[in-house]
């Protein structure tokens, strides 16, 4: 539950569906774009999108990363066959995406590596550089903000070049936006009127569809039309229950460089069906330090401590369970982690930290029961893999929960150290890490 990025394609389709309504029918944005996952997909799309074969095209990956031009991943002003070939040539390719570049245009950071899978294809919008604008909508605690700049282009976010902004209090109607201040001296003539209408309609969309962020960079404004060439957007996914119809079917893809694993998808599905919270992100499946921590706050502190103690490369996962999950939910969560960590044997073994603070209402006995069931199932594999388990937990029924865990450790012959709230919350991390041999190949 948070603001989540959506694909450029989905953002444009949302605008296409709603801008007309939000502008009282005055704006008709056609949103010509297709999303494909192969060259063949593009060929199939051509039946319903005749413009694909009649226009010059732009092809870009659509996987939630920016700076596509600087990363050499925008293929512009090409014909249909070229686009198909380009997509097939890039599909499945592993690339490093950089965010920082030096003035010569060379990458200035390590980059994030991931695989290209999704491409957006659109008609080329011929325009002059001075027709590029920047427009964004974003929220803060007391209201929303509309940002505008005459100088659109890739650098505007960082340079704040010519950026003007207006603050809009929560609940304000789109018609009350002080666009004079925002646009003063930046746009004139025919474009101004059209831009004002577009801004109002976009703001209404932004509010009604529960966008957390909506950015056009650039927005091309000519005398004839206004076209969002590049759109970046985040939706507040906690509003899904309000926006089911407005959004339609929508995908919240994982950030680039982190394809959602089968196990992550499984926990995500579990989380969606549950009133409790279950989260799992695999950071490094070969890492030797695995965590299964209760609580959204405590889990971050456990990860901090692992990193502080110099084991960032060994940290296998980030996750948390909280909100009093049932025994069955905790068992499934634990099984998933135990399964992942017992797939590959390493010299010196691995550690699992079953951590947590002092719970408010999560029943420690009940949740530990689920973990014990998973331990029973994986006991043999845990021993084969030389896995040591370190437990620290407090909260309702913790005495009982810890006692059962001790009993299970004994019965199953597992190497476990079990602590209650008498131990500092993160001291158990050091205890666990100290058991790992320092050098491994």
């Amino acid at each position, binding site marked *: *539950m948070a603001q989540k990025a959506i694909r450029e394609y989905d953002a444009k389709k949302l605008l296409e569906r709603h801008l007309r309504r939000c502008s009282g029918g005055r704006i008709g944005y056609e949103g010509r774009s297709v999303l494909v996952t192969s060259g063949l997909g593009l060929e199939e799309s051509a039946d319903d999108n005749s413009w694909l074969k009649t226009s010059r095209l732009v092809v870009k990956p659509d996987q939630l990363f920016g700076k596509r031009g600087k990363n050499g991943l925008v293929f512009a002003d090409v014909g249909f066959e070229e686009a198909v070939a380009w997509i097939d040539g890039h599909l499945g390719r592993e690339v490093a995406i950089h965010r920082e570049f030096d003035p010569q245009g060379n990458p200035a950071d390590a980059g994030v590596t991931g695989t290209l899978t999704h491409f957006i294809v659109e008609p080329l919008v011929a325009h002059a550089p001075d027709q590029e604008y920047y427009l964004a909508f974003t929220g803060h605690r007391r209201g929303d903000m509309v940002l505008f700049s005459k100088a659109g282009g890739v650098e505007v976010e960082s340079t704040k070049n010519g950026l003007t902004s207006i603050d809009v209090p929560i609940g304000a109607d789109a018609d009350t936006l002080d666009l004079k201040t925002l646009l003063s001296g930046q746009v004139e003539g025919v474009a101004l009127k059209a831009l004002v209408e577009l801004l109002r309609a976009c703001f209404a969309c932004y509010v009604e569809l529960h966008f957390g962020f909506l950015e056009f960079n650039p927005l091309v404004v000519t005398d004839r039309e206004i076209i969002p060439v590049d759109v970046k957007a985040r939706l507040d996914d906690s509003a899904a229950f309000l926006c089911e119809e407005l959004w339609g079917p929508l995908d919240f893809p994982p950030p680039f460089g982190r394809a959602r694993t089968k196990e992550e998808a499984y926990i995500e599905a579990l989380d969606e069906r549950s009133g409790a919270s279950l989260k799992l992100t695999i950071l490094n499946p070969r890492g030797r330090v695995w965590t299964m921590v209760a609580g959204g*706050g405590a889990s971050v502190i456990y990860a901090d401590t692992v990193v502080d103690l110099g084991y960032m490369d060994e940290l296998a996962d*980030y996750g948390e369970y909280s909100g009093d999950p049932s025994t069955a939910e905790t068992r499934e969560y634990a099984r998933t982690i135990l399964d992942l960590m017992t797939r590959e044997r390493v010299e010196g073994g691995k550690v699992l930290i079953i951590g947590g603070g*002092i719970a*408010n209402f999560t029943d420690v006995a009940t949740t530990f029961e689920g973990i014990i069931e998973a331990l029973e199932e994986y006991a043999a594999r845990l021993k084969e893999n030389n896995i040591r388990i370190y437990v620290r937990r407090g909260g309702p029924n913790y005495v009982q929960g810890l006692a059962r865990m001790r009993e299970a450790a004994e019965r199953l012959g597992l190497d476990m150290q079990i602590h209650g709230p008498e131990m*500092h*919350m993160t001291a158990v991390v050091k205890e666990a890490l100290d058991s790992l041999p320092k050098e491994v190949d």
Partner: protein
Amino acid sequence: MAARPDYTLFDRDTTAIIFGNQQRAAQRMLDFDYLSGRKMPSVACVVDPSGPRRGNMQVFFGRKEILLPMCNSLAQAARDHPESDVVINFASFRSAHDVSVEALQTPTVRTLAIIAEGVPERQTRQLIALKDVLGKWIIGPATVGAIAAGAFKIGNAGGAISNLLMSKLYRAGSVGCVSKSGGMLNEMAHMISLNSNGLLEGVATGGDTYPGSTLLEHLLRYEANPEIKFMVVLGEVGGSEEYAIADALRRGTLTKPVVAWVTGTCLKAFPSEVQFGHAGAMVKGASETADAKNTALREAGAVVPDSYNDFGEKIRAVYDDLKRRGDIVEGPEPPVPVMPAEYLPGTMRKPTNVTCTISDDSGEELLYAGVPISTVINEGYTLGEVICLLWFKKRLPRYAADFLDLALKITADHGPCVSAAHNAIVTARAGKDLTAAVASGVLTIGPRFGGALDGAARRFKEALDRGLSPRQFVDEMKEKGENIPGIGHMIKSVQNPDMRVTLLKEWAAANLPKHDLLDFALEVEKLTTAKKNTLILNVDGCLGVLFVDILLSTGAYTVEEFDEVIDIGTLNGIFVLGRTIGMIGHFLDQKRLGTGLYRHPTADVLYMLPRDSRPA
């Protein structure tokens, strides 16, 4: 109650309305109350929106089992408990916003805690705008709440009894703590108790991007609270609240020592974006990283540890320093409260299966609604007064008790031909015993016979409350095609009035200062008898409306309590009880007469069977 200073959201007199059927949370609050030595439970009322209009929740207050009032609307709860200025909103993310708006707009409510995780951000921001206009406090969403040591706690904050004891939350210390994470609130309270004289107040503002109140807003309260000597902050990666704290430190609006740590330092080591458990823990730019915020706080003068591991030591260092300077003087430690054995982990408190609130035979002397039987006898309670104790749980004015006496006398019998007496006679003559005879008679009492008291009372009162004229009322009932309960008699008419009704009317004129509903009913009778002379106000109707006049005139009932009296069928009790006297009489009469089995004469039955339709 003395007004609380602005910086105090909760004290030992604070009571809350819980929205949501949260038995466990309510019980945890009461356990805390008991440990803290509160005289009164901190939960005034529980709202279960899908529950009945009125109800009770069985909970323990110490050893004692008590009933917390329940109702099904926040408005009702606030009307019943105007002294409660805290609402704990347990509604799900779907309805959390709407319930919160209602809570904020309730004038008696000052502080609202929103527990749900997943409230849409725009909705939360609307709530923030609303509470700003109204000058109220929101804690949450996505939080466990807050705890004021030894005074009050919200819902599940503070955790189980074992933790309340371990972290000494049953008595006030000198530290004000604020954390984003609700789960970490206990952990912080524990750490603080290990390294100082403990918590005075702790708030978890919640893991959302836009919390209803910010870390700084609570710190400013702590700054103003003379009981709080220093503050502990647990921040989180994402957002810029910690910079506001740094600013306040620099500007001198925060002068008390602040020990702070921002979690999420690991994020820099992660290869790509990871969404932490909290929605708000998302970085938008370099300034929102944990490292940047820890540095800013340190530079502004906060005491910032090198890692979470040293947090406790830093708290101890600040505490020791304040002690050395004499700012904190440790008093004698109060004795650790002893919990009843059944509260200990592993043992269960077993709620009773039956609740009784009218009489008690478990003590030395039998009690009727708290009045010892000796008092009832020695002080000469009338039968009507005993009925008041056992039916209404209170002593009503003498004229109300007298009316009950009168009603019983008037309804005691009405001859052998009415259905109850007839059934009792037939049963007696079948050789059955007294209880069977009375039971068979009682079972005939209902909407057509003797049971119209409730209906009459309800219909007439509703018409009067709605301001209908007698004419409008009659027309409306006609339109609905319903008979007016309490109007009409088989035999009696305008020309042949029912003496019982006449007596009741005379009694009312002599004893009641005011009888609006009776007057209204008599106006209605004028209209109905103009149509047909048997459509008189009958004895059921007269008793029903008079009963309403009397109960309302005592002032002992609110409108809602009164509605409940009618809804649960109290009025028909008068007829059932009164007529039982007569039915016992008829049973005894038949036994003395030695009558044989009753068989209805064949001649008195009209036999009308269908013709045999089989082919000849």
